[in-house]
């Protein structure tokens, strides 16, 4: 039965009574008045009648929501501030936690990832540093470092070692090995592309427990010499190149010119065992012999070579076997193998089994700690936001005391009023949560884009983490309701008369008046302290970034266009490769805008380095008679000129150097001084390089020191050697380096075209500018600085929002007090100063708490800084100034309004 029906009944009752009274002679108006009076509260009657049936709560909720909406629309500023605080707090938190979860916690989409382990080994005193990007190579000492990673753990194994692991069925349910070839040339359905190819052992898919989305996965019987060449492709590749994955089955895909039949498509989520890349094609491991030229496969013996390290290995532990146990069991076996395999000088190695649930973990390692720091920051922001909500609600509740008293006196039950206030808080929180959700989505996208900037082929897609969103929404909701409720409870207990009579600014109960002010101010002080923490952090990271960006490089990084090609993959031999390189270089230098051009077999700043043993006879450096590992960079003619590394003595490498007997080399200043005492003394000296035998190297020039291989390493003593003499150098991806007059990007298209015209079969790798590489090296610092700055600004905005609100409220509460002061002669300026002084006091109190805490905590982030101390006084001072300025600006507007009060109006204000 509806409200209207009840109302009709009630009104009929009253009507009948009125008519009766009229009939008995009462005048009409009096009759109606009496009838209504006798009936009593009609609304109450109807409500209670409906309550009996229990539908009432829903209607009441609807009415409460509508009332809440009206109240919020009336107080637009309050609503905006509260909602903004909530949205920012919830959004920032959810974005960061979602991002964290994707990067740190996401598991491989395989069966039972927890029982997977990655095998690595460690050489005591291993060289730290990594060589990225290229395929396999023949030389042993090169290979070990090329499999290495940042932490000195090497994750590449020889095939015979893998066979040893396979035999351990007591420890492992399955063992897999694979070799990843990034940016290999893949041809299918009439086109070709560069994509990631994984050569996988027969046990790869069975061990991972991955079932094909279509067709079948590669099985052990496919991984044999002489087996029909079959392949699996990713779902993405299949759809992209065949339209529909069903069309891909049975078709042919060619890798490095060898045809394979597609027998299966991998599931959508599966990207291979390495989350940093997305594998397009899976080929049987043994087909490596088919696709690679002999020089890459140890002349066909790569599967029996004991000391060629080229396979990534993962195992699935048997139930009950822990990683520690497997590691301990495997260690003696592998140590012995390594000792035997390391030839005349036996070397030691230690087995490590790492958690394989999330796949190769370099990404995680890079970002784990910074992300924890970011998480802490974002939690702070949420706290500040909740404090804001609390403050705003408290302020508003006090100012509504009278409204609530009126409602109570008109017959509203206390429960009803409380319920309605709660509904208001709820609606507010929900709107804030909704906006927070949008903000979080946007935040996650931005973070992913920022992270991907430094890495090619980035496949991690962070998704919104719903539990975290729910948690942050819940936290905000609870704090909103708690702070909306407390004053509500207090207000509705009031003696109705006294609050109706009392104006908001009259003394009232002094004790009660103390409470809201104190709590609000305390919250502001806390917010200021927290904001200071964030400001200081931001300051430190921004300065670190600027220090990094102004590091002296030793060469000119501007306007350098770089791209890689691989002629060996297109079937060129050594001599024809070099000829092709030079022809290409000449064509490229003819492009208008290209000032200089050269080649190199490695990057100056991409983190990877070449190092070989050199013997330097006649060196003043002790023990340099014996072989010593030295850093080098194989380059082509005019490299140093193109890179604008100043030549201090002698000359650059030239075209003619190719025909010399010995390999031409240019030494860095440190090298010359280290081995020969002075720059001049190095000219004409010889050294012996151990690479494919002993090679004679002659120093033809000395240049100023330059950074190699990354920004933070001190400039090394190194050699730039002519790459053309050793086929081992030319078999890598060769980079063409072009110095352009203007924006390098403009030359990019022309360069691509020239390459395609020269030989369409030669695949081009990534094309980028040197500046981009530098940025990607310091991507973490860039990310950090930007994020922290964003967070600090966010925190300040939220805190200032709170300060603005509190000041405005305080001003309105003290309107008559201000009026009295002005009537007694105070100027507008005086009033302004008075209010601002109070704000300054709050600020100082906040800083008094925040600064010591910041100084204490700053040592935690010391490892992320560069060139700056964690307690850098300049940064501290700047943060203090920023915070105080922000506080003053926030309080200025309401303070200014107070200063402009007309005393007459103020005095009459109730």
């Amino acid at each position, binding site marked *: 039965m509806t409200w209207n029906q009840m109302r009709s*009944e009630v009104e*009929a009752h009253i009507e009948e009574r009125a008519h009766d009274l009229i009939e008995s002679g009462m005048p009409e108006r009096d009759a109606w008045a009496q009838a209504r009076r006798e009936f009593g509260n009609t609304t109450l*009657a109807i409500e209670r009648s409906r309550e009996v049936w229990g539908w009432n709560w829903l209607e009441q909720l609807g009415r409460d929501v509508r009332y809440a909406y009206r109240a919020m629309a009336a107080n637009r500023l309050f609503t905006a501030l509260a909602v903004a605080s909530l949205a920012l707090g919830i959004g920032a938190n959810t974005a960061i936690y979602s991002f964290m979860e994707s990067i740190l916690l996401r598991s491989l989409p395989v069966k039972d990832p927890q029982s997977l382990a990655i095998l690595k080994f460690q050489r005591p005193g291993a060289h730290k540093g990594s060589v990225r990007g290229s395929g396999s190579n023949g030389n042993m000492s090169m290979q070990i470092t090329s499999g290495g990673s940042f932490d000195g753990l090497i994750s590449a194994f020889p095939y015979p070692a893998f066979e040893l692991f396979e035999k351990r069925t007591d420890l492992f349910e399955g063992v897999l090995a694979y070799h990843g070839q990034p940016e290999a040339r893949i041809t299918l359905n009439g086109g070709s592309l560069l994509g990631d190819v994984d050569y996988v052992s027969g046990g790869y898919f069975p061990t991972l427990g991955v079932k094909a989305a279509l067709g079948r996965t590669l099985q052990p019987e496919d991984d044999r010499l002489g087996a029909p060449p079959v392949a699996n492709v990713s779902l993405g590749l299949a759809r992209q190149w065949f339209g529909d994955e069903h069309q891909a089955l049975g078709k042919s895909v060619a890798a490095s010119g060898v045809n394979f039949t597609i027998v299966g498509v991998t599931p959508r989520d599966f990207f291979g065992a390495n989350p940093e890349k997305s594998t397009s094609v899976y080929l049987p491991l043994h087909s490596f012999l088919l696709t690679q030229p002999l020089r890459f496969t140890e002349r066909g013996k790569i599967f029996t070579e004991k000391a060629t390290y080229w396979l990534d290995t993962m195992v699935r532990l048997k139930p009950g076997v822990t990683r520690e146990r497997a590691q301990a069991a495997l260690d003696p076996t592998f140590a012995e193998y390594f000792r035997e395999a390391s030839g005349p000088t036996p070397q030691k190695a230690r087995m490590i089994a790492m958690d394989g649930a999330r796949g190769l973990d370099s990404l995680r390692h890079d970002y784990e700690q910074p992300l924890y720091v970011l998480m802490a920051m974002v939690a702070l922001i949420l706290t500040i936001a909740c404090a804001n909500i609390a403050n705003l609600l408290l302020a508003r509740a006090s100012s509504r005391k009278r409204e609530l008293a009126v409602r109570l006196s008109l017959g509203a039950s206390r429960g009803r009023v409380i319920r309605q206030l709660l509904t208001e808080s709820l609606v507010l929180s929900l709107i804030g949560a909704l906006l927070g959700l949008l903000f979080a989505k946007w935040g996650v996208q931005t973070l992913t884009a920022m992270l991907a900037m430094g890495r090619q082929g980035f496949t991690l897609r962070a998704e919104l983490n719903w539990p975290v969103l729910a948690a942050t929404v819940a936290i905000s909701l609870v704090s909103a309701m708690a702070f909306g409720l407390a004053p509500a409870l207090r207000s509705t207990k009031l003696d109705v008369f006294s609050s109706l009579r009392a104006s908001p600014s009259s003394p009232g109960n002094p004790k009660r008046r103390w409470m809201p002010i104190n709590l609000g101010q305390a919250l502001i002080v806390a917010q200021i302290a927290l904001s200071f923490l964030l400001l200081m952090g931001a300051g430190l990271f921004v300065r670190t970034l600027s220090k990094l960006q102004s590091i002296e490089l030793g060469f000119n990084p501007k306007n350098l266009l770089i791209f890689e090609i691989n002629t060996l993959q297109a079937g060129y031999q050594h001599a024809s490769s070099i000829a092709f390189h030079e022809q290409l270089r000449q064509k490229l230098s003819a492009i208008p805008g290209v000032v200089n051009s050269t080649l190199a077999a490695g990057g100056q700043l991409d983190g990877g380095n070449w190092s070989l043993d050199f013997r330097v006879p006649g060196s003043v450096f002790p023990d340099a008679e014996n072989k010593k590992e030295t850093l080098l960079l194989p380059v082509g003619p005019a490299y140093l000129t193109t890179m604008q590394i100043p030549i201090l003595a002698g000359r650059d490498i030239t075209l003619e150097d190719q025909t010399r007997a010995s390999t031409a080399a240019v030494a860095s200043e440190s090298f010359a001084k280290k081995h020969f005492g002075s720059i001049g003394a190095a000219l004409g000296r010889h050294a012996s390089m151990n690479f494919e035998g002993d090679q004679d190297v002659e120093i033809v020039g000395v240049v100023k020191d330059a950074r190699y291989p990354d920004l933070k390493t001190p400039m090394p003593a190194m050699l730039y050697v002519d790459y053309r003499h050793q086929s081992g150098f030319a078999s890598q991806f060769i980079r063409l380096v072009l110095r352009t007059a203007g924006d390098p990007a403009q030359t990019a298209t022309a360069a691509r075209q020239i390459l395609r015209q020269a030989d369409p079969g030669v695949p081009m790798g990534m094309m980028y500018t040197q500046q981009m590489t530098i940025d990607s090296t310091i991507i973490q610092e860039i990310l950090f600085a930007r994020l922290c700055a964003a967070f600090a600004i966010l925190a300040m905005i939220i805190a200032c929002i709170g300060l603005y609100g509190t000041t405005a409220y305080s001003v309105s509460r003290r309107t008559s007090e201000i009026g009295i002061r002005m009537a007694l002669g105070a100027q507008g300026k005086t009033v302004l100063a008075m209010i601002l002084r109070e704000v300054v006091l709050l600020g100082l109190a906040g800083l008094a708490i925040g600064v010591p805490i910041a100084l204490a905590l700053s040592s935690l982030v010391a490892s992320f800084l560069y060139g700056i101390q964690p307690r850098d006084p300049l940064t501290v001072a700047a943060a203090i100034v920023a915070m105080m300025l922000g506080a003053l600006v926030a309080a200025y507007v309401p303070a200014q309004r107070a200063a402009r009060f007309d005393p007459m109006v103020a005095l009459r204000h109730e």
Partner: protein
Amino acid sequence: MHEDDRSLFPGALEMMILQTLRSGPSHGYALAQVIKRNSDDLLQVEEGSLYPALQRMLKAGWVNADWGMSPTNRKIRIYKLTPAGRKQLEREVSRFERMLEGISRAMKAVQS
């Protein structure tokens, strides 16, 4: 729920309504008038509490309601006693009489 009721005790209103309905179906206003008249205005019944009471009795199944027209041609409901309601009335009456008996005995004991 019954705070605003100025009846003597909870349930008294329901009892009087049931009793009134025993003589025949009635609508809200008429019920109010009868109760007032019968108690000679001694018992102040807030008319507004009549309707919630009627709804409670409807829910409990002691009365039935039909739609009808008031003398002023408005749509109203006409309430009728059900057999269950009749039984409830008997129970209430005997409970009331026992209570009355108990009180008077207790009072007599005090007095004597």
